Every structure is written in C-alpha cells, then in structure tokens.
C-alpha cells in the first residue's frame, strides 16, 4: 500500500481542498502527493500558527482545510488552537509527524515527543496515533469525525508508520 497516496485519496474523497504544510522529512511523500492533485489547493506556511489562520479563513470561505506539520511545532500553535480553532468552533484535521518516537534517530526530537500527547490531552483535542501502516485505514473515518464535530483533531504519525529512516 502507498500510504501517501491513500492519505491524499481520502482527503479528496472527503472534499478536503485546502491544505497547508510545514515540511518534515517523514511527510515529504504526502506533501508531494498533495501538490500533485488538482482537487487540492496547496499553500506552504512559514509557521504552523500562520497555517492554522489560513485554514480558519479557508473554512469560513467554504473550503474544508487541513494542516500537515511536525509535533515539534505543537507548542507554537497552542494559543491559536485554543483562541481561534476551538473558540470559534472550527474543524481542523492535523496530520502530524510524530518525531521523537520509536525509530527516531535524533535525540532532541524526543524532548517534544514526550510532551506531545500530554499537550493534546490538556487541550481536549481528539488524538489518534498511527504506528503501523494498516492504521491508515482509520484516516477516512477520522476526517469524517473531524468535520462532524467541528474540532481540531490530531493524527500523530510516527517513524514506524512512515517506514523508518532506512539504514542509519
């Protein structure tokens, strides 16, 4: 299974047509796939809170948005999640590379990984963790759930899910 293609197929099937991204090595394939699709407007952001602002505007303009980002940036988005996305009750699927988890080669990444689920739990953000490739089967349901409840929803995707980093 090509998980990049499966994820973007699910986005298109759920009418997600506005995607902003801040890159991560693990997310390179899915970002490439987003860029390729005519059904999706892809706009890279310089920072994740900026991206969430773009998504809020796109949602109010009638589009279904999504952000693709790293968990290391969660800290800079907490205020935006609380005072914009949640306060105004807007849906936002967040496809997040879960750096610092199993098969992570960079020690510093672990320092935010140990806080990631706690921060999301503190914000009452529904959170799903993809560890095995088959976990991607849930993605379609998660998108439907997000746009049903009008909340930000986190999908954490670790290195094992993306197939690791190869020989290191």
């Amino acid at each position, binding site marked *: 299974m090509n998980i990049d293609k499966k994820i973007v197929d699910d986005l298109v099937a759920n009418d997600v047509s506005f995607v902003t991204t801040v890159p991560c090595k693990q997310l390179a394939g899915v970002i490439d796939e987003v860029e390729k699709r005519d059904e999706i407007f892809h706009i890279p952001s310089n920072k994740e809170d900026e991206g969430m602002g*773009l998504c809020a*505007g796109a949602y*109010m303009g*009638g589009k279904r948005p999504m952000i693709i980002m790293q968990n290391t940036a969660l800290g800079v988005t907490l205020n935006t999640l609380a005072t*914009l996305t949640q306060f105004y009750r*807007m849906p936002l699927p967040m496809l997040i590379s879960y750096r610092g988890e199993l098969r992570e080669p960079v020690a510093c990444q672990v320092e935010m990984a140990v806080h990631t689920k706690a921060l999301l739990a503190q914000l009452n953000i529904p959170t799903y963790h993809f560890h095995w490739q088959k976990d991607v089967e849930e993605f379609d349901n998660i998108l439907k759930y997000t746009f049903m409840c009008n909340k930000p929803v986190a999908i954490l995707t670790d290195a094992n899910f993306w197939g690791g980093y190869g020989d290191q």
Partner: protein
Amino acid sequence: MIRSEILREIAPIIRDHLVVCNIGLPSQELHMIDDQPTNFYMLGTMGLSSSIGFGLALAQDKAVISIDGDGSVLTNLGTLPTIANNPTGNYTLLIIDNGSYGSTGDQPTYAGKKTSLTAVAKACGCENVIEVQDKDLGPVLQEAIDSDEMTIIVCKCDSGNIKLPVITLDPVVIRHRFMEAVKA
C-alpha cells in the same frame, strides 16, 4: 489621526465587503462604529488577521480586507512571503501602522523605529505595496478593493486609543453570521 478615526472614515468603504479585523481595540472600535455581519472580529490570536483574511480570499471570490496592525504583523512576519507568493486579486491587507502596541498601552513597536513594513512587504515579494498617510487612506483603499490586483497598504498614523467596552458577542455567533454573509 488615530486608528479609531481612520476606522470611522473608512467604515462606508468597507461596509459591504468581507472584513477580518485584528484582535483587541481595532475589533472593538469597528464593532462600535459599524457592526456588520460581514465583519469577522478576532477575540484572540494576535497576528493572524492577515492569515485568516488571506485564507478566506483564496477560498472564495468576494473581496476581502484584513485590517491589521504593525505590532500584529511583526508578530507574524512569515505571513508576508506567503501572501506575496500566492497572490489573489480579491485580497487587500490594510496595516494600520501607528508605531505602537495600542491594545496593551501604546508601547512602541520596531515599526515605529527603524523597521519599515512597507520595505519588508516589498522585500518579501509583495508587488503592490502602498504607504499612505492616514488622511489620504480612503481613496487608496477604495482603489485597492476595486482593482484586480492584490494590494498591501501601510497606513501611517498616530498612536492613541479611545475607551470602549469589550465585544461580548459569542465567537460562534460571530463566525456563523460571518459565514452566512460569505455565502450570501
């Protein structure tokens, strides 16, 4: 002129358009001067007025004006390259540049010192950047809205605030009526 005087002057120009208004006093002033369902008032999230308005402009065809401040743009400087590289003609960014953080007690910003947001916007790749003095804003803003080119306006003005109450509208109400106005 101070910001509230500028908002009073441009209210008839922006009334029929989608407006995303910056957190704090700018939203409170616009709400008091001319509350419209086409106004999206930011109650939090300093810095994102330009981003929210830009996302809205990209998602649909109606004209959108983001009212921002110099302090807020400095908070989210990354917005300018994003706007510059994805231009859309229905978007106008109005930066009311009074050189101070008005809502927090008029502490000076760097935009009131050495930093020129006009030059920054140009350096970021924005092609249509106009710096204007407060008294001359009206016609410039009208032209920006009417034109098919995306425009960034940096309106230089005095710092100063008026006393007024906070907005007590529920955020979901603000968002809902705004989305209905977008669809109308």
